Each structure stands twice: as C-alpha cells, then as structure tokens.
C-alpha cells in the first residue's frame, strides 16, 4: 500500500538570503563607523596607559623605545604593527638606564600579565605592576598590593659569569624566615598566585638578562 507523504510547504529562500546579507552589511557599516570614530582615542588611551606603567616601573625614565625579537633572538626597533617584546628606557640625558619588560604566565584562575622594570645601575627590579589578573579577590588579588610588590625592589639580580643564566633565581618561601636576599615571602592564603608571579619573573629574567647583556649596544634613542 502506498504511503501518503505530507506535502511540505515550499519556502522561497530568497527573502532569507536577502535579509541576512542586508543585515550583515548594515551591521558591518555600524561596526566600521564606530571603530573609525573611537580608534584614535583608544590608541591614545593605550599609549598613555603604557607610558604611565613604564614610568612607574622604572622611576627616572623620561623616554622609551620598544624592541621586538626577530630571527635568532636579535632585537630590532619595533614597527607600529607589532607589539614590542621589551622597552629600553632612557633618562633625560638619553642614557640607557634600564628596561621595562612585559611578561605573563598562568596564575591560580587565569593568566597573570605584568610589567616590571630592570635597572641596569642597581641590577634590581625597582617597580612591578600587574596589568592583567583575575586572581581570587581578597586572597590571590593581594599580588597587586604594594606590600607584596615591594619585596622585589630589595633584591639584586645578576647573571653568573658568562652571562648565560641567573646567579640566584627568585625563590618563594612560606612560613619560614627569609634568610637569603633572593627569597620572597609568600602571601598567606595565596601561595599559588605568589608562586605564579615569582615563576613568571624567573622565566622572563632568565631569558631577557642574557639577551640584554649580549645586545646592549643595540639600544639607542633616536631624535
């Protein structure tokens, strides 16, 4: 016996295509217009935020220039399109005084992004700011507190003879008295976040200090 198939109503797809393409074009127009209007202001805001952060982590810096890693770890002055890997900082006499280095790594909740300064004269980290953190409020978020960040400014960080690796990587300690200069006290209740900051700094310093030592002559300011 032949089965009777229900008649499917035929839908003309043309109005659907027309609507979706039309709405897509309209939406694109709105997005591009808003982007064009806001982009110059956003660019200025980002530049100002970067300047504030760099001058905060390396007191005494009056100007800076961004450098990007190229082939074979060679550092080149950044073009506008690529975000710099490191910022060489100069004083008012245009002498190189240190570097502001962005670094990031996994924290307790999410990626922690930070920017730290490295002073060539003192061989220390005079300043450190947390740029991105979603650590637990009240606990892990204390990595942004002055009390914790101040720990790093007291430490001298040098390379072993041969300038290939750090003499004393930073070390996190908890519940014990700090006996060595390179030891950092963990924040109570936020060991993972404290360890994350220390590990990020160790990795970054271990990579950058030898590069800086090898390529020091490349860092110049142009007028």
């Amino acid at each position, binding site marked *: 016996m032949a089965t009777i198939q229900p008649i499917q109503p035929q839908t003309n797809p043309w109005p*659907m295509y027309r*609507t979706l393409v039309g709405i897509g074009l309209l*939406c694109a127009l*709105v*997005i591009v217009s808003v982007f064009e209007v806001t*982009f110059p202001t956003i660019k200025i*805001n980002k530049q100002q935020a970067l300047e504030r952060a760099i001058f905060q982590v390396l007191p005494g810096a009056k100007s800076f220039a961004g450098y990007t890693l190229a082939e074979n770890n060679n550092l080149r002055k950044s073009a506008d399109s690529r975000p710099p890997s490191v910022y060489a900082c100069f004083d008012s006499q245009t002498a190189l005084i240190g570097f502001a280095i962005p670094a990031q790594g996994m924290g307790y909740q999410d990626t922690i992004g930070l920017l730290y300064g490295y002073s060539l004269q003192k061989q220390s980290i005079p300043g450190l700011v947390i740029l991105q953190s979603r650590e637990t409020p*009240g*606990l892990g978020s204390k990595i942004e507190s002055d009390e914790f960040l101040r720990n790093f400014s007291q430490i001298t960080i040098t390379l072993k003879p041969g300038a290939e690796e750090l003499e004393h990587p930073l070390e996190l300690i908890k519940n014990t008295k700090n006996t060595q200069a390179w030891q950092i006290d963990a924040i109570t209740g936020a060991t993972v976040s404290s360890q994350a900051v220390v590990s990020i700094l160790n990795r970054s310093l271990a990579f950058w200090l030898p590069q800086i030592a090898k390529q020091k002559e490349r860092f110049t300011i142009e007028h």
Partner: protein
Amino acid sequence: MNTKHAEIVVTGPKDTDEFIKGLWAQNPVFVQVLGMCPTLAVTNTATNALTMGLATAFVLLMSNIMVSSLRRVIPKQVRIASYIAIIATFVTAVDYIIQAINLELHKSLGAFVSLIVVNCLILGRAEAFASKNNIKSSIYDALGMGLGFTLALLCLGVVREILGSGTFFNLMVTPTNFEKWVIMLLPSGGFFVLALWMLVINRLKQRRQEAKD
C-alpha cells in the same frame, strides 16, 4: 429618534506604562530573573555595576530600535540569527566606546562586555516586544527595561562594594578598623545579596497587595 452609538475604542498600554513596567512590575533582574551572569559576576563594585547596566541598556535600546524598524522585512525563519547579528553589532560598538572612554573600566569589566551578546534580556525583548511593536513603544520598553536592569545591578553593586571593600564609588565610607567581607567580592556574595534584595522586593509587593485587598 436620535440614537447615540457607543464607540468602542481599543487602546493599548500607554508608552509611559511600557517604560514603568521595566522598573518595577517586570524588573528584568528581580522579577523576570534574566541576565543573571553579569548580575552576579560584575556587581562587585558600584562603578562596574553602573557601567555594565548602562552598556546593556544602550545595546538593548539600539537593538530594539533596529529590530522594530526591520520587523516587517525579517522572515520568521531567520529572525533569531538576525537579532543576534544586530545585538552583537551594538555590543562590539559599546566595547569600543568603553575603551575610548576609560581603559581601566574596560579592563575591570573584562570579558563581560562581550558577553552582553548572550544576555537573554536583550534577545528576550527583541523577540517578545520589539518584533511585535512600533519603534516608539520599543524605545520606551528598552529604556524602562534598561534602566530597571541598571538600577538592579546598582542595588547589588552598592551593597557588595560597601561590605566587601568598605567603599562607595571608590570613596571610603567605613571606619578604618572595619573588617571587610571578602565573600561579598566573590560570586557567592552576589548570590546572597541578590537573594536579600529579592526578599525585600517581594515583601514590599506582598504588603502592597495586602493593602489593596
């Protein structure tokens, strides 16, 4: 004999009613319980709550206007896809606008600005109201719902900021020896404060109803 015929005039709700319903009777957070993700996640400070509320209200207003204007040309089979595209457009726009106004604020709201796209309040109003009503009514509806949402977020943000950080819009309002309630800054604190506000509002409604009866 002259007879006068009674003229039956069918009138819909007034525009002011469309506006007011979002503030109280159909408040998106306390009554409809919509948009819970930003309600609990970004109300840890009053500033964040106010910004998120205003950003959502802006997206709601613009998407309601666009959906209402295009309601006769959007086939029903592709209406949801069209609404999402419209909403995503205005969310992208608001994301750029917040970055232009204040980068720090944008940073503190994190991914939640982008997540306005999936706020069911906005898609809900597009589907339930703007697609069936004229532009004027849709504007009043969006303004009422947007303001209602902003006020609700602000109610949570103020309480959480005072108890969790001891501040009100970043101004210290508690004594220096005040022990901060860290839980208020965590999402679980958001649940507690939301429950308390709902309790207060339902109690007020109940008392009003009892007074009427």
